[in-house]
């Protein structure tokens, strides 16, 4: 369970952090409302503990802002105000509970537990494990449609395991989550209830042990038998390997995750004490080593966001000189975001090639806002290459860059993001800074009209929006906006030109085709899926796609042959062809490129990797077509 603590009182926060950690809660703490907003809208929490009196954006305003944005997580408001009217104001602002300072820590813990329990009861969607179904709305459990009768504790245990599929729960954690403090249960109680639950599920007809024991660690939901979970199609050996490998990977990660968490803790502690105590050379070397080990481990386990963040931290610590004051906030933001990345489950990654070829960003932030640091860290995690310019001159210098080598294009960023937000106390930018930035946006558009510009501003009414659009900005985001939303907008803007591009997917596995279509859905492409490769030519000439994604092994006509057919036609020499295959061996890859492929991706696809590969191909294809049309004109 994760809690966000927003309180500027260092002494109280320290006590709370300690007490909440004892209760196995994972806590992030920030000291002002703006950072609270940034964290809450970026990371997932189960509860927010919020102080009313905060610098800049106060607790009440933050609470209102969160609720207006549709934020549903419970909020517990802490305050020194004890008037009845204050309580009403707090609850009206959207808080779920209210505690007056000074308070008894035990009471706070009880209220947190009650709020969390209330929320989890409200999560009503049905949970499934193979043919086993748990319906939280009716508190009923069925297996293959037949009811399974469980006691309340057995039901709660099963619900917890189903809700947190990959998590290992120690007996102590289970006691904390399922049993209330006045029941005085022991670990033997947990064992006995798990035994009871297993027995009942077995009697219901489930042959696999639903809850497995992880020696020395606790209990976890087992993986449902693959043959039972998948439809009729026989699995090819590579996919079996993948399933086996993933199971092994999850097991190894559970056993060793703590080592990574310890390393992260070291970095976190260092980032927190850095402003007061600085960093000795020995600490820097040690931190660099920790970041290096973290990158190695996280990359191996397919936690690619964590891998990218750890690499960036390592790079930040590379310089022999001490960390610069302006880098402190960046270091802290990277470390905090890394902590969240550690909670992701391990995945099958395609190794170093897995980093999506995402956009290079130039962020112009003359106020050096902590909010932008958070955005930077998240951008790094998602595979962007962000660079911050603290002045418009600096930004122009970066854009003008060193002269490119002969024959090479200018290395421009893919997008420029300009922060038009003032200080945290008053988001409206002062007149001088505002004029400087507006002039910069105009210059940007005159000198590099092809470069999309995204702006964040608190003044996004029609008049201002019109002015900004006239100056050439492609997208205007109204502040407050979460870093996550900014990045989504960036991706959209960078690739805005490629919406409605036509993508043809050819794979004989219809189920897989469906998954691909779903994966590409948010990008508004026009997708033509095809399972029967013999019908390729008819469909191809009808749709004339902008990109073709081909599987290799298909009955009748295989992917290599299709690729050769296309390349044998003068008109289709340049249409981008991406191979998507389970075969990761160099021979298959070389063969694909030899017959004319533009790219080769090994299954399984990680996250948005395929999307970025397609977008990159589209980008190059469009550039080529533009050049061709200029030449022919």
């Amino acid at each position: 369970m994760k809690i966000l603590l927003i309180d500027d009182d260092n002494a109280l926060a320290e006590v709370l952090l300690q007490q909440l950690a004892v209760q196995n809660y994972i806590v992030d703490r920030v000291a002002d409302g703006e950072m609270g907003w940034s964290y809450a809208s970026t990371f997932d929490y189960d509860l927010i503990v919020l102080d009313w009196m905060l610098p800049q954006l106060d607790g009440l305003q933050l609470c209102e802002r969160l609720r207006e944005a549709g934020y549903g997580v419970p909020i517990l408001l802490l305050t020194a105000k004890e008037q009845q009217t204050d309580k009403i104001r707090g609850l009206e602002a959207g808080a779920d509970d209210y505690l007056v300072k000074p308070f008894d820590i035990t009471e706070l813990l009880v209220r947190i537990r009650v709020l969390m329990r209330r929320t989890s009861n409200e999560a009503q969607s049905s949970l499934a494990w193979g043919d086993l179904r748990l319906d939280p709305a009716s508190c009923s459990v069925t297996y293959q449609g037949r009811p399974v009768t469980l006691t309340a504790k057995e039901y709660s245990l099963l619900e917890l395991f189903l809700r947190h599929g990959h998590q290992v729960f120690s007996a102590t954690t289970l006691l904390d989550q399922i049993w209330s403090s006045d029941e005085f249960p022991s670990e033997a109680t947990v064992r006995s209830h798990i035994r009871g639950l297993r027995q009942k599920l077995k009697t219901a007809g489930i042959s696999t042990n639903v809850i497995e024991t992880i020696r020395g660690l606790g209990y976890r939901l087992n993986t449902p038998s693959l043959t039972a979970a998948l439809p009729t199609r026989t699995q090819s050996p590579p996919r079996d390997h993948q399933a086996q490998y993933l199971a092994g990977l999850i097991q190894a990660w559970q056993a060793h995750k703590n080592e990574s968490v310890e390393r992260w803790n070291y970095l976190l502690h260092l980032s927190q004490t850095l402003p007061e105590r600085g960093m000795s050379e020995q600490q820097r070397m040690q931190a660099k080593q920790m970041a290096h080990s973290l990158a190695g481990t996280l990359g191996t386990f397919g936690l690619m966001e964590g891998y990218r963040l750890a690499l960036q931290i390592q790079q930040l610590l590379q310089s022999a000189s001490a960390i610069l004051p302006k880098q402190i906030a960046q270091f802290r933001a990277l470390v905090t975001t890394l902590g969240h990345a550690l909670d992701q489950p391990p995945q099958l990654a395609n190794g170093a090639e897995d980093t999506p070829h995402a956009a290079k960003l130039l962020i112009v932030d003359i106020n050096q806002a902590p909010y932008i640091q958070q955005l930077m860290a998240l951008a790094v995690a998602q595979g962007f290459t962000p660079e911050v310019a603290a002045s418009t001159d600096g930004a122009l210098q970066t854009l003008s860059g060193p002269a490119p080598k002969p024959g090479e294009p200018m290395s421009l960023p893919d997008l420029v993001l300009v922060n038009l937000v003032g200080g945290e106390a008053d988001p409206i930018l002062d007149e001088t800074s505002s004029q400087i930035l507006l002039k910069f946006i105009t210059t940007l558009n005159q000198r590099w009209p092809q470069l999309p510009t995204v702006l964040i501003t608190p003044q996004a009414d029609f008049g201002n929006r019109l002015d900004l659009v006239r100056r050439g900005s492609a997208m205007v985001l109204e502040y407050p906006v979460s870093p996550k939303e900014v990045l989504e907008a960036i991706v959209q803007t960078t690739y805005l030109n490629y919406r409605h591009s036509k993508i043809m997917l050819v794979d004989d596995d219809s189920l897989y085709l469906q998954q691909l279509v779903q994966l590409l859905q948010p990008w508004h492409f026009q997708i033509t899926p095809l399972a029967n490769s013999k019908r390729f030519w008819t469909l191809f000439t009808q749709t004339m796609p902008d990109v073709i994604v081909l599987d290799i092994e298909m009955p009748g006509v295989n992917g290599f042959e299709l690729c050769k057919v296309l390349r044998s036609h003068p008109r289709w020499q340049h249409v981008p062809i991406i191979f998507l295959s389970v075969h990761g061996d160099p021979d298959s890859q070389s063969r694909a490129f030899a017959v004319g492929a533009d790219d080769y991706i090994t299954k399984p696809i990680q996250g948005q990797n395929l999307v970025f590969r397609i977008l990159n191909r589209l980008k190059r294809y469009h550039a080529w077509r533009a050049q061709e049309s200029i030449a022919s004109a």
Partner: protein
Amino acid sequence: MTSKLILVIDDEESIQKVVKLSLKLEANWESICASSGREGFSQAQTQQPDAILLDVMMPEIDGIKTFEMLNNNLQTQTIPVILLTAKTGTAEKRLFQKIGATGVITKPFNPLTLASQMARLLGWRL
């Protein structure tokens, strides 16, 4: 092909496990693991593996020193060594080539094709 025995030298136990699993699943190769350069050197002498996968960045005796130890010993100098390292620059790559490593694999590696990647560097057929 007959099963191979690979010695994995890496101070991270978690990575040892992942490598072991990858090699077994993809190529049915067996592996033995060592957590330090010193332990790896001694295992190489006694176990005589078919190849060694050696992490470059390790505390105390790093991968390069371990490689030198292996290279200077009659019992181990003929065993091919593949270095396992984080993203490398050109200067480092040149160094690895100069010291005579059979190949370099960059971390993070693709676990599903690690054995083929090794086989290619070693000139083995899978």
